[in-house]
């Protein structure tokens, strides 16, 4: 979808995004010549269709840029809203702390988080829950690469 400022005959650029709010997001486009703005307001069906494509409105770039885009992208926010904040976290964009708390009281190291970020997003939460259960069952209070390797051996992968 593209937006054209009819008066200036110029393509309008994404200016800002707002939402999500009950399945709707607002995308504001501005004309780079005259500054006129228009807003596209999606209904839940449109929001769902776009998020189903697995793309980021607002653009994607480097890891940091992706993180910034994700933080301002309403459709990513919508996914967070749908799946719970933990599901849509971006492990590669975490602060450079050595570990961070997770739901089950199990900490993930940055390296383990990075590995988690490499698997398909849709099943990432399954992996997080499963690995945390494995960690708790085996007496670990944090997930690091060694724990992941132990899980790999335990499950015969």
């Amino acid at each position: 979808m593209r937006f054209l400022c009819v008066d200036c005959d110029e393509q309008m650029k994404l200016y800002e995004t707002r939402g999500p709010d009950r399945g709707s997001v607002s995308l504001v486009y501005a004309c780079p010549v005259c500054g006129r703005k228009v807003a596209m307001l999606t209904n839940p069906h449109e929001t769902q269709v776009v998020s189903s494509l697995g793309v980021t409105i607002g653009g994607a770039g480097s890891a940091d840029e992706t993180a910034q885009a994700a933080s301002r992208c309403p459709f990513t926010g919508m996914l967070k809203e749908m799946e719970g904040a933990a599901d849509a976290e971006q492990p590669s964009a975490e602060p450079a702390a050595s570990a961070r708390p997770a739901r089950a009281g199990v900490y993930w190291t940055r390296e383990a988080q990075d590995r988690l970020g490499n698997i398909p997003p849709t099943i990432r939460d399954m992996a997080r829950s499963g690995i945390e259960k494995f960690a708790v069952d085996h007496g670990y209070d944090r997930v690091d690469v060694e724990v992941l390797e132990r899980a790999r051996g335990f499950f015969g992968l």
Partner: protein
Amino acid sequence: MKTYRDIDGDGGSDILGQVVAQRGRIAANLSGVKRLVGVGSGKGGVGKSTLTTLLALELTRRGRECAILDADLNGPSQAQLAGVPSAPPVPGELGLLMPRGRGGFGVVSLGSLLPPREAFSLPSVAEGDSYVWRATREFTLLGELLAGVEWGRLDVLLIDLPPGAERAVQYAEALGPQLRFVLATIPSDLARGVVARSVDALKRTPNPLLGYVENMSGYYCHGCNAVRPLFASAPGREHRDPIGLERLGSLPFDPVLAEQCDRGLAGSPGGPVGLAVAEIAEKLLARLDESAPAGAVAAGAEEVR
């Protein structure tokens, strides 16, 4: 006034670029995979999944590195057929680690990730209208799996497709011409007619059709060690509705094999089924060698506008 095609880009989101990037990730991740073979059928219940598993077993027995992607997200059966133990997804260094079945080949199936008897659900803000977006979301997940699993080096990646003539075409378009097809049918005119429609639809794509397999071509009686007719038609007879594709072979129904499937297959079956699978695999490998060299999946992203 400018029109759509007078304008480059989409004003900042670069959706097309993101789609191209995703296809690039898929291509890069499949760079070690020599062949993509989709096992499909317009008709459901004709044994696509069992055929896929049997082919993987036979190809593995022949020393080929092989894996299965269960693309039937809503009716995943490959985990059970291949005897993949239930385990959570475990992230490896580069992506999701691939579970292996009892036969030694890799299997990626939601069946090993979801609790038994639990349907695969996807979150939505448009509740009650999943027909609008569900297929799109499923293809996105398929792309995530292709881009996010540690496939390693494979001679053949078999993709067990969901039924439907239109679905096969969607997979052809999503995965590009590198995806070759084997179709499954049973010897009834009803099923053959539906599969013939699949062939017609797929022949409009650039994707090579390797042939079809006639499943349940007879009933293997262990008591008398003979294959009896299961359908009125004899295996390979001239049907009223020809499929228009080379038959790679015929597989009789073996009740012992059916029981083994419930527990997970560990090796190639013996008897008439084993012989038939070997013949089919032989022809399949020959067809694969005849077709163009395999490469990474590279769909025509530039056509997405």
